[in-house]
Protein backbone atom coordinates (compact mmCIF):
# COMPACT_ATOMS: atom_id res chain seq x y z
CA UNK A 1 0.00 0.00 0.00
CA UNK A 2 1.48 3.25 -1.05
CA UNK A 3 1.59 6.00 1.52
CA UNK A 4 -0.02 9.17 0.36
CA UNK A 5 2.41 11.48 -1.37
CA UNK A 6 2.23 14.50 0.83
CA UNK A 7 0.45 15.50 3.91
CA UNK A 8 0.72 19.23 4.14
CA UNK A 9 0.31 20.69 7.54
CA UNK A 10 -0.05 24.43 7.40
CA UNK A 11 0.28 25.65 10.91
CA UNK A 12 -2.21 28.38 11.70
CA UNK A 13 -0.47 31.69 12.33
CA UNK A 14 -2.68 32.65 15.21
CA UNK A 15 -5.00 30.77 17.47
CA UNK A 16 -8.54 32.03 17.78
CA UNK A 17 -11.05 31.02 20.39
CA UNK A 18 -14.10 29.45 18.77
CA UNK A 19 -17.02 31.86 18.63
CA UNK A 20 -19.87 30.93 20.86
CA UNK A 21 -23.31 32.07 19.87
CA UNK A 22 -25.05 33.63 22.77
CA UNK A 23 -26.39 36.79 24.30
CA UNK A 24 -23.07 38.66 24.49
CA UNK A 25 -24.65 42.06 23.93
CA UNK A 26 -26.68 43.63 26.63
CA UNK A 27 -25.24 41.64 29.48
CA UNK A 28 -25.50 44.69 31.68
CA UNK A 29 -28.56 46.12 29.98
CA UNK A 30 -30.93 48.02 32.27
CA UNK A 31 -33.64 45.40 32.03
CA UNK A 32 -31.38 42.55 33.18
CA UNK A 33 -32.04 41.97 36.88
CA UNK A 34 -28.94 39.86 37.54
CA UNK A 35 -25.53 39.14 36.11
CA UNK A 36 -24.38 36.00 34.33
CA UNK A 37 -22.91 34.46 37.45
CA UNK A 38 -25.89 35.40 39.58
CA UNK A 39 -24.16 38.14 41.58
CA UNK A 40 -25.83 41.38 42.52
CA UNK A 41 -24.41 44.44 40.79
CA UNK A 42 -22.61 45.65 43.92
CA UNK A 43 -21.01 42.32 44.80
CA UNK A 44 -17.44 41.34 44.14
CA UNK A 45 -16.24 37.90 43.13
CA UNK A 46 -15.00 35.53 45.76
CA UNK A 47 -11.34 35.72 46.55
CA UNK A 48 -8.62 33.15 47.11
CA UNK A 49 -5.21 34.25 48.32
CA UNK A 50 -2.05 32.22 48.86
CA UNK A 51 1.31 33.62 49.87
CA UNK A 52 4.81 32.14 49.65
CA UNK A 53 4.26 31.01 46.09
CA UNK A 54 7.61 32.15 44.66
CA UNK A 55 10.29 30.94 47.04
CA UNK A 56 13.15 32.91 45.50
CA UNK A 57 11.55 36.29 46.04
CA UNK A 58 11.28 38.31 49.23
CA UNK A 59 7.52 38.03 49.20
CA UNK A 60 4.89 36.77 46.83
CA UNK A 61 1.19 36.30 46.50
CA UNK A 62 -1.16 34.35 44.27
CA UNK A 63 -4.62 35.84 44.02
CA UNK A 64 -7.56 34.29 42.27
CA UNK A 65 -10.96 35.87 41.98
CA UNK A 66 -13.34 33.49 40.20
CA UNK A 67 -11.44 32.85 36.93
CA UNK A 68 -8.90 35.66 37.03
CA UNK A 69 -5.46 34.67 38.32
CA UNK A 70 -2.68 37.06 39.28
CA UNK A 71 0.77 36.44 40.77
CA UNK A 72 2.72 39.23 42.42
CA UNK A 73 6.28 38.88 43.65
CA UNK A 74 8.50 41.38 45.41
CA UNK A 75 12.25 41.65 45.06
CA UNK A 76 13.95 43.83 47.63
CA UNK A 77 14.71 46.07 49.34
CA UNK A 78 17.92 46.07 47.31
CA UNK A 79 20.69 48.66 47.65
CA UNK A 80 20.30 51.56 45.27
CA UNK A 81 22.62 54.48 45.76
CA UNK A 82 20.49 56.84 43.67
CA UNK A 83 17.48 56.81 46.00
CA UNK A 84 18.73 59.28 48.58
CA UNK A 85 16.09 60.21 51.09
CA UNK A 86 13.45 57.57 50.50
CA UNK A 87 13.35 54.15 48.95
CA UNK A 88 12.18 53.71 45.42
CA UNK A 89 9.46 51.34 44.24
CA UNK A 90 8.90 50.13 40.68
CA UNK A 91 6.02 47.97 39.53
CA UNK A 92 6.12 45.86 36.43
CA UNK A 93 2.63 44.81 35.44
CA UNK A 94 2.33 42.39 32.56
CA UNK A 95 -0.28 40.21 30.97
CA UNK A 96 1.03 36.76 30.10
CA UNK A 97 0.69 36.09 26.37
CA UNK A 98 -1.76 33.26 27.07
CA UNK A 99 -3.87 35.24 29.52
CA UNK A 100 -6.67 36.17 27.13
CA UNK A 101 -8.52 34.65 24.20
CA UNK A 102 -6.23 36.29 21.62
CA UNK A 103 -2.51 35.99 22.21
CA UNK A 104 -0.82 39.11 23.53
CA UNK A 105 2.52 40.29 22.28
CA UNK A 106 5.52 39.74 24.56
CA UNK A 107 6.64 43.32 24.18
CA UNK A 108 5.49 45.68 26.88
CA UNK A 109 2.73 47.85 25.50
CA UNK A 110 1.75 51.38 26.46
CA UNK A 111 -1.36 49.96 28.08
CA UNK A 112 0.76 47.80 30.41
CA UNK A 113 2.92 50.81 31.28
CA UNK A 114 -0.19 52.73 32.21
CA UNK A 115 -1.45 49.91 34.42
CA UNK A 116 1.99 49.65 36.06
CA UNK A 117 1.84 53.30 37.01
CA UNK A 118 -1.70 52.85 38.37
CA UNK A 119 -0.45 50.06 40.63
CA UNK A 120 2.58 52.09 41.78
CA UNK A 121 0.37 55.07 42.59
CA UNK A 122 -1.93 52.83 44.60
CA UNK A 123 0.88 51.31 46.67
CA UNK A 124 2.81 54.50 47.45
CA UNK A 125 0.58 56.01 50.20
CA UNK A 126 0.68 52.94 52.40
CA UNK A 127 4.42 52.26 52.35
CA UNK A 128 6.95 53.82 54.71
CA UNK A 129 9.59 54.32 52.07
CA UNK A 130 11.44 56.90 54.15
CA UNK A 131 12.37 54.09 56.55
CA UNK A 132 14.40 52.40 53.79
CA UNK A 133 16.58 55.08 52.19
CA UNK A 134 19.08 54.16 49.49
CA UNK A 135 17.08 51.06 48.58
CA UNK A 136 14.75 50.08 45.83
CA UNK A 137 11.92 47.60 45.71
CA UNK A 138 10.71 45.88 42.55
CA UNK A 139 7.25 44.42 42.31
CA UNK A 140 6.58 42.05 39.44
CA UNK A 141 2.98 41.28 38.62
CA UNK A 142 1.92 38.67 36.08
CA UNK A 143 -1.63 38.15 35.05
CA UNK A 144 -1.92 34.48 34.23
CA UNK A 145 -5.55 34.49 33.29
CA UNK A 146 -7.40 37.71 32.66
CA UNK A 147 -11.11 37.95 33.24
CA UNK A 148 -11.91 41.62 32.93
CA UNK A 149 -8.93 43.89 32.21
CA UNK A 150 -9.55 46.59 34.78
CA UNK A 151 -10.63 44.02 37.35
CA UNK A 152 -7.23 42.39 36.85
CA UNK A 153 -5.49 45.66 37.62
CA UNK A 154 -7.55 45.92 40.81
CA UNK A 155 -6.58 42.36 41.80
CA UNK A 156 -2.96 43.19 40.97
CA UNK A 157 -3.01 46.05 43.46
CA UNK A 158 -4.32 43.77 46.19
CA UNK A 159 -1.84 41.01 45.33
CA UNK A 160 1.09 43.43 45.26
CA UNK A 161 0.15 44.84 48.64
CA UNK A 162 -0.05 41.37 50.20
CA UNK A 163 3.29 40.42 48.64
CA UNK A 164 4.90 43.59 50.03
CA UNK A 165 3.52 42.74 53.43
CA UNK A 166 4.98 39.25 53.25
CA UNK A 167 8.33 40.73 52.20
CA UNK A 168 8.39 42.66 55.45
CA UNK A 169 8.15 46.19 54.05
CA UNK A 170 6.74 48.53 56.67
CA UNK A 171 3.31 49.78 55.73
CA UNK A 172 0.30 51.50 57.22
CA UNK A 173 -2.17 48.90 56.06
CA UNK A 174 -3.13 46.59 53.23
CA UNK A 175 -4.26 48.28 50.05
CA UNK A 176 -7.22 46.71 48.30
CA UNK A 177 -8.23 47.49 44.74
CA UNK A 178 -11.72 47.39 43.31
CA UNK A 179 -13.08 48.23 39.89
CA UNK A 180 -16.43 49.15 38.42
CA UNK A 181 -17.87 49.89 35.02
CA UNK A 182 -20.91 51.84 33.99
CA UNK A 183 -23.31 50.31 31.51
CA UNK A 184 -26.81 51.44 30.75
CA UNK A 185 -26.58 54.10 33.43
CA UNK A 186 -25.89 51.53 36.12
CA UNK A 187 -22.71 51.06 38.12
CA UNK A 188 -21.55 47.46 38.12
CA UNK A 189 -18.74 46.39 40.45
CA UNK A 190 -15.99 43.88 39.61
CA UNK A 191 -16.86 42.93 36.05
CA UNK A 192 -15.72 39.92 34.10
CA UNK A 193 -14.34 40.12 30.58
CA UNK A 194 -17.70 39.50 28.97
CA UNK A 195 -19.40 42.18 31.07
CA UNK A 196 -16.69 44.72 30.25
CA UNK A 197 -17.50 44.90 26.56
CA UNK A 198 -19.26 48.02 25.25
CA UNK A 199 -19.37 49.94 28.48
CA UNK A 200 -19.43 53.68 29.05
CA UNK A 201 -16.21 53.80 30.98
CA UNK A 202 -14.53 52.30 34.02
CA UNK A 203 -13.44 53.29 37.50
CA UNK A 204 -10.61 51.82 39.51
CA UNK A 205 -10.39 52.55 43.22
CA UNK A 206 -7.61 51.47 45.56
CA UNK A 207 -8.04 52.09 49.25
CA UNK A 208 -6.96 51.10 52.71
CA UNK A 209 -10.39 50.26 54.12
CA UNK A 210 -9.24 50.01 57.72
CA UNK A 211 -7.81 53.53 57.68
CA UNK A 212 -10.57 54.81 55.36
CA UNK A 213 -8.07 56.26 52.94
CA UNK A 214 -8.27 56.27 49.18
CA UNK A 215 -4.86 55.44 47.73
CA UNK A 216 -5.65 55.76 44.07
CA UNK A 217 -8.57 56.63 41.89
CA UNK A 218 -8.53 56.32 38.11
CA UNK A 219 -11.54 56.85 35.95
CA UNK A 220 -12.07 57.03 32.22
CA UNK A 221 -15.39 57.65 30.55
CA UNK A 222 -18.09 60.31 30.45
CA UNK A 223 -19.79 60.01 33.84
CA UNK A 224 -21.70 62.32 36.12
CA UNK A 225 -19.85 63.59 39.16
CA UNK A 226 -22.02 61.50 41.46
CA UNK A 227 -21.22 58.26 39.68
CA UNK A 228 -17.50 58.73 40.18
CA UNK A 229 -17.86 58.86 43.93
CA UNK A 230 -20.44 56.11 44.01
CA UNK A 231 -20.45 54.38 47.32
CA UNK A 232 -20.70 50.86 45.95
CA UNK A 233 -17.13 50.82 44.66
CA UNK A 234 -15.80 51.83 48.04
CA UNK A 235 -17.92 49.14 49.63
CA UNK A 236 -16.54 46.67 47.11
CA UNK A 237 -13.13 47.33 48.60
CA UNK A 238 -14.48 46.89 52.08
CA UNK A 239 -16.25 43.71 51.03
CA UNK A 240 -13.00 42.19 49.85
CA UNK A 241 -11.16 43.41 52.86
CA UNK A 242 -13.85 42.05 55.12
CA UNK A 243 -12.19 38.73 54.56
CA UNK A 244 -9.24 39.91 56.64
CA UNK A 245 -9.76 37.21 59.21
CA UNK A 246 -9.15 34.69 56.49
CA UNK A 247 -6.08 36.64 55.43
CA UNK A 248 -4.44 36.43 58.82
CA UNK A 249 -4.92 32.71 58.65
CA UNK A 250 -3.13 32.62 55.31
CA UNK A 251 -0.16 34.54 56.71
CA UNK A 252 -0.05 32.62 59.96
Amino acid at each position, binding site marked *: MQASASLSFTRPNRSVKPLIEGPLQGILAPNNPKRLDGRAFENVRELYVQTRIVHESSGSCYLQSANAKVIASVDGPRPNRYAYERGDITCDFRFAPFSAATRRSTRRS*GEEREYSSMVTQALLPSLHLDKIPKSSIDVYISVIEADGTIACVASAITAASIALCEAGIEMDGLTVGCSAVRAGGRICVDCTGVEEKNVEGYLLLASMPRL*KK*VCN*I*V*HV*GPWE*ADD*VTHVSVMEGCVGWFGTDTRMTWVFG
Partner: protein
Amino acid sequence: MTDLILSESEKTFILHGVEQNFRIDGRTRSDLRPIVMETDVVSHASGSCHLRLANTDILVGVKAELETPLAAHPDRGRIEFFVDCSANATPAFEGRGGDDLAADISRVLTSAYESPEVLDLRELCIMKGRTCWILYVDILILEVGGNLYDTVSMAVKSALFSTKIPLVSVTSVDGGEPELELSDDPHSSSRISVKNAPILVTLTRIGNHCVVDSTPEEETCSSASLLVSVTPSGHITTVKKIGGGSFQPSSIASATKQAVSVGVHLNQSIMDKLKQEESMGRKREKVGFL
Protein backbone atom coordinates in the same frame (compact mmCIF):
# COMPACT_ATOMS: atom_id res chain seq x y z
CA MET B 1 8.14 69.79 39.30
CA THR B 2 10.92 72.09 40.40
CA ASP B 3 12.97 71.10 43.40
CA LEU B 4 11.91 73.86 45.73
CA ILE B 5 13.06 73.66 49.32
CA LEU B 6 10.66 75.23 51.77
CA SER B 7 11.18 75.50 55.48
CA GLU B 8 8.64 74.06 57.89
CA SER B 9 7.37 77.50 58.89
CA GLU B 10 6.83 78.44 55.24
CA LYS B 11 4.84 75.25 54.73
CA THR B 12 2.78 75.96 57.83
CA PHE B 13 2.12 79.48 56.59
CA ILE B 14 0.81 78.13 53.29
CA LEU B 15 -1.28 75.54 55.11
CA HIS B 16 -2.93 78.09 57.38
CA GLY B 17 -3.60 80.38 54.43
CA VAL B 18 -5.36 77.60 52.57
CA GLU B 19 -7.50 76.80 55.62
CA GLN B 20 -8.62 80.39 55.82
CA ASN B 21 -9.39 80.50 52.08
CA PHE B 22 -6.74 83.19 51.58
CA ARG B 23 -3.64 81.93 49.78
CA ILE B 24 -0.22 83.60 49.70
CA ASP B 25 -1.04 85.64 46.63
CA GLY B 26 -4.48 86.58 47.93
CA ARG B 27 -6.50 84.13 45.86
CA THR B 28 -9.27 81.95 47.20
CA ARG B 29 -9.04 78.18 46.87
CA SER B 30 -10.96 78.17 43.59
CA ASP B 31 -9.28 81.13 41.87
CA LEU B 32 -6.87 80.88 38.98
CA ARG B 33 -3.94 83.08 38.14
CA PRO B 34 -4.17 85.38 35.09
CA ILE B 35 -4.10 83.69 31.69
CA VAL B 36 -2.73 85.20 28.49
CA MET B 37 -3.53 83.34 25.31
CA GLU B 38 -3.23 83.76 21.59
CA THR B 39 -4.21 81.40 18.79
CA ASP B 40 -2.84 81.08 15.24
CA VAL B 41 0.74 81.85 16.15
CA VAL B 42 2.36 79.09 14.11
CA SER B 43 1.90 79.58 10.40
CA HIS B 44 2.67 76.02 9.27
CA ALA B 45 0.20 74.36 11.61
CA SER B 46 -3.50 73.89 10.93
CA GLY B 47 -4.19 75.34 14.35
CA SER B 48 -2.08 76.58 17.22
CA CYS B 49 -2.25 78.29 20.54
CA HIS B 50 0.28 79.93 22.83
CA LEU B 51 -1.06 80.05 26.37
CA ARG B 52 0.61 81.43 29.45
CA LEU B 53 -0.79 81.01 32.95
CA ALA B 54 1.44 83.04 35.29
CA ASN B 55 4.79 81.27 34.84
CA THR B 56 3.60 78.20 32.97
CA ASP B 57 4.05 78.57 29.23
CA ILE B 58 2.66 76.10 26.69
CA LEU B 59 2.71 76.12 22.90
CA VAL B 60 0.38 73.74 21.05
CA GLY B 61 0.40 73.06 17.32
CA VAL B 62 -2.27 70.98 15.60
CA LYS B 63 -1.58 69.46 12.22
CA ALA B 64 -4.24 67.66 10.22
CA GLU B 65 -3.01 64.90 7.96
CA LEU B 66 -4.76 62.50 5.63
CA GLU B 67 -4.41 58.84 6.52
CA THR B 68 -6.33 55.59 6.52
CA PRO B 69 -8.67 55.03 9.45
CA LEU B 70 -8.28 52.14 11.86
CA ALA B 71 -9.97 48.90 10.82
CA ALA B 72 -11.97 48.87 14.05
CA HIS B 73 -13.47 52.32 13.37
CA PRO B 74 -13.62 52.90 9.62
CA ASP B 75 -15.93 55.89 9.84
CA ARG B 76 -13.91 57.95 12.28
CA GLY B 77 -10.82 60.09 12.24
CA ARG B 78 -8.31 60.14 15.09
CA ILE B 79 -6.69 62.54 17.43
CA GLU B 80 -3.23 61.87 18.84
CA PHE B 81 -1.34 63.76 21.49
CA PHE B 82 2.41 64.18 21.72
CA VAL B 83 4.05 66.10 24.50
CA ASP B 84 7.58 67.41 24.45
CA CYS B 85 9.03 68.63 27.71
CA SER B 86 11.62 71.04 26.46
CA ALA B 87 14.82 71.38 28.46
CA ASN B 88 14.08 75.12 28.61
CA ALA B 89 11.31 74.49 31.07
CA THR B 90 13.34 72.98 33.91
CA PRO B 91 16.86 71.56 34.06
CA ALA B 92 15.25 68.34 35.25
CA PHE B 93 13.85 67.87 31.73
CA GLU B 94 17.26 67.66 30.14
CA GLY B 95 17.90 64.54 28.06
CA ARG B 96 15.35 61.88 28.90
CA GLY B 97 14.32 63.42 32.20
CA GLY B 98 11.02 64.74 30.96
CA ASP B 99 9.97 61.58 29.11
CA ASP B 100 7.94 60.07 31.94
CA LEU B 101 6.03 63.26 32.54
CA ALA B 102 5.47 63.72 28.82
CA ALA B 103 4.07 60.19 28.47
CA ASP B 104 1.85 60.80 31.48
CA ILE B 105 0.38 64.03 30.12
CA SER B 106 -0.34 62.51 26.72
CA ARG B 107 -2.01 59.50 28.36
CA VAL B 108 -4.25 61.74 30.46
CA LEU B 109 -5.23 63.79 27.43
CA THR B 110 -5.98 60.64 25.44
CA SER B 111 -8.24 59.38 28.25
CA ALA B 112 -9.94 62.75 28.56
CA TYR B 113 -10.69 62.96 24.83
CA GLU B 114 -11.56 59.28 24.49
CA SER B 115 -15.28 59.36 25.09
CA PRO B 116 -17.41 59.84 21.98
CA GLU B 117 -19.40 62.77 23.32
CA VAL B 118 -16.28 64.94 23.56
CA LEU B 119 -15.24 65.19 19.94
CA ASP B 120 -17.30 63.88 17.07
CA LEU B 121 -14.54 62.06 15.21
CA ARG B 122 -16.97 61.10 12.45
CA GLU B 123 -16.68 64.67 11.21
CA LEU B 124 -13.08 63.85 10.33
CA CYS B 125 -13.95 60.99 8.03
CA ILE B 126 -13.68 61.65 4.31
CA MET B 127 -14.21 58.24 2.75
CA LYS B 128 -15.33 55.46 5.00
CA GLY B 129 -12.64 52.85 5.38
CA ARG B 130 -10.24 54.68 3.08
CA THR B 131 -9.29 58.17 4.14
CA CYS B 132 -9.77 60.27 7.20
CA TRP B 133 -8.18 63.22 8.90
CA ILE B 134 -5.84 62.56 11.79
CA LEU B 135 -5.21 65.47 14.10
CA TYR B 136 -1.72 65.41 15.53
CA VAL B 137 -1.70 67.64 18.58
CA ASP B 138 1.87 68.51 19.51
CA ILE B 139 2.40 70.17 22.83
CA LEU B 140 5.61 71.98 23.67
CA ILE B 141 6.20 72.85 27.30
CA LEU B 142 8.27 75.99 27.39
CA GLU B 143 8.20 76.85 31.06
CA VAL B 144 6.85 75.17 34.19
CA GLY B 145 5.48 77.36 36.96
CA GLY B 146 2.98 75.06 38.63
CA ASN B 147 -0.32 73.65 37.39
CA LEU B 148 1.01 72.00 34.28
CA TYR B 149 -1.87 69.67 33.34
CA ASP B 150 -4.58 72.34 33.44
CA THR B 151 -2.59 74.78 31.32
CA VAL B 152 -1.84 72.10 28.74
CA SER B 153 -5.51 71.16 28.46
CA MET B 154 -6.60 74.79 28.06
CA ALA B 155 -4.00 75.32 25.33
CA VAL B 156 -5.09 72.12 23.56
CA LYS B 157 -8.74 73.15 23.59
CA SER B 158 -7.90 76.60 22.23
CA ALA B 159 -5.65 75.17 19.53
CA LEU B 160 -8.38 72.74 18.46
CA PHE B 161 -10.85 75.62 18.33
CA SER B 162 -8.58 77.51 15.98
CA THR B 163 -7.80 74.51 13.77
CA LYS B 164 -8.80 74.98 10.17
CA ILE B 165 -9.07 71.76 8.20
CA PRO B 166 -8.86 72.18 4.41
CA LEU B 167 -11.98 71.26 2.50
CA VAL B 168 -11.63 68.03 0.56
CA SER B 169 -13.67 67.10 -2.47
CA VAL B 170 -13.84 63.56 -3.73
CA THR B 171 -13.88 63.21 -7.50
CA SER B 172 -14.64 59.73 -8.66
CA VAL B 173 -12.76 58.55 -11.67
CA ASP B 174 -14.45 55.95 -13.85
CA GLY B 175 -13.08 52.52 -13.14
CA GLY B 176 -10.33 53.83 -10.92
CA GLU B 177 -9.61 54.93 -7.40
CA PRO B 178 -11.56 57.94 -6.23
CA GLU B 179 -9.35 60.98 -6.14
CA LEU B 180 -9.13 63.55 -3.43
CA GLU B 181 -8.78 67.20 -4.17
CA LEU B 182 -7.71 69.59 -1.48
CA SER B 183 -9.06 73.05 -1.90
CA ASP B 184 -6.32 75.59 -2.68
CA ASP B 185 -8.15 78.49 -1.14
CA PRO B 186 -6.65 79.10 2.33
CA HIS B 187 -9.82 80.72 3.52
CA SER B 188 -12.17 77.84 2.72
CA SER B 189 -11.83 75.41 5.55
CA SER B 190 -13.91 73.51 8.01
CA ARG B 191 -13.63 73.63 11.76
CA ILE B 192 -14.14 70.95 14.37
CA SER B 193 -16.62 71.55 17.09
CA VAL B 194 -14.99 71.80 20.51
CA LYS B 195 -18.13 72.70 22.36
CA ASN B 196 -17.84 69.53 24.45
CA ALA B 197 -14.07 69.43 24.74
CA PRO B 198 -12.95 68.99 28.35
CA ILE B 199 -10.53 70.94 30.47
CA LEU B 200 -8.41 69.31 33.15
CA VAL B 201 -8.71 70.73 36.64
CA THR B 202 -6.03 69.75 39.13
CA LEU B 203 -7.03 69.87 42.77
CA THR B 204 -4.02 69.91 45.03
CA ARG B 205 -4.74 68.72 48.51
CA ILE B 206 -3.15 70.87 51.19
CA GLY B 207 -4.26 69.99 54.68
CA ASN B 208 -7.98 69.31 54.61
CA HIS B 209 -8.81 71.44 51.58
CA CYS B 210 -8.15 71.32 47.87
CA VAL B 211 -6.85 74.27 45.89
CA VAL B 212 -7.10 74.88 42.19
CA ASP B 213 -4.14 76.17 40.17
CA SER B 214 -1.35 75.56 42.65
CA THR B 215 1.92 77.45 42.55
CA PRO B 216 5.20 75.49 42.80
CA GLU B 217 5.39 76.39 46.51
CA GLU B 218 1.92 74.99 47.14
CA GLU B 219 2.78 71.86 45.20
CA THR B 220 5.70 71.26 47.56
CA CYS B 221 3.34 71.37 50.52
CA SER B 222 0.96 68.79 49.17
CA SER B 223 1.33 65.04 48.97
CA ALA B 224 -1.51 64.22 46.59
CA SER B 225 -3.47 65.87 43.79
CA LEU B 226 -6.61 64.83 42.01
CA LEU B 227 -6.86 65.52 38.31
CA VAL B 228 -10.41 65.79 36.97
CA SER B 229 -11.37 66.34 33.36
CA VAL B 230 -14.56 68.41 33.13
CA THR B 231 -16.64 69.05 30.01
CA PRO B 232 -18.62 72.28 29.58
CA SER B 233 -21.80 70.42 30.51
CA GLY B 234 -20.36 69.31 33.84
CA HIS B 235 -19.60 65.70 32.94
CA ILE B 236 -16.39 64.09 34.10
CA THR B 237 -14.41 62.23 31.46
CA THR B 238 -11.41 61.17 33.45
CA VAL B 239 -10.15 61.19 37.02
CA LYS B 240 -6.61 60.46 38.09
CA LYS B 241 -4.64 60.74 41.28
CA ILE B 242 -1.15 62.20 41.14
CA GLY B 243 1.42 62.05 43.87
CA GLY B 244 2.32 59.65 46.62
CA GLY B 245 -0.31 60.58 49.18
CA SER B 246 -3.87 59.46 49.81
CA PHE B 247 -7.34 61.00 50.09
CA GLN B 248 -10.27 60.52 52.41
CA PRO B 249 -13.33 59.25 50.53
CA SER B 250 -15.33 62.33 51.55
CA SER B 251 -12.63 64.67 50.29
CA ILE B 252 -12.74 62.96 46.88
CA ALA B 253 -16.46 63.69 46.70
CA SER B 254 -16.03 67.36 47.68
CA ALA B 255 -12.99 67.69 45.41
CA THR B 256 -14.88 66.44 42.36
CA LYS B 257 -17.72 68.86 43.11
CA GLN B 258 -15.24 71.72 43.35
CA ALA B 259 -13.58 70.59 40.12
CA VAL B 260 -16.89 70.47 38.27
CA SER B 261 -17.89 73.98 39.34
CA VAL B 262 -14.47 75.43 38.49
CA GLY B 263 -14.26 73.45 35.24
CA VAL B 264 -17.65 74.55 33.95
CA HIS B 265 -16.86 78.19 34.71
CA LEU B 266 -13.38 77.94 33.16
CA ASN B 267 -14.71 76.26 30.00
CA GLN B 268 -17.22 79.08 29.59
CA SER B 269 -14.61 81.84 30.08
CA ILE B 270 -12.19 80.30 27.60
CA MET B 271 -14.87 79.84 24.95
CA ASP B 272 -15.97 83.45 25.41
CA LYS B 273 -12.44 84.72 24.93
CA LEU B 274 -11.84 82.48 21.92
CA LYS B 275 -15.01 83.75 20.27
CA GLN B 276 -14.01 87.31 21.07
CA GLU B 277 -10.61 86.75 19.47
CA GLU B 278 -12.22 85.19 16.42
CA SER B 279 -14.61 88.10 16.02
CA MET B 280 -11.66 90.49 15.74
CA GLY B 281 -10.99 88.77 12.44
CA ARG B 282 -8.06 89.63 10.24
CA LYS B 283 -7.72 93.08 11.74
CA ARG B 284 -6.34 91.50 14.90
CA GLU B 285 -2.78 92.48 15.67
CA LYS B 286 -0.71 89.36 16.20
CA VAL B 287 1.43 89.68 19.29
CA GLY B 288 3.49 86.55 18.80
CA PHE B 289 6.36 85.80 21.14
CA LEU B 290 7.60 89.26 21.89
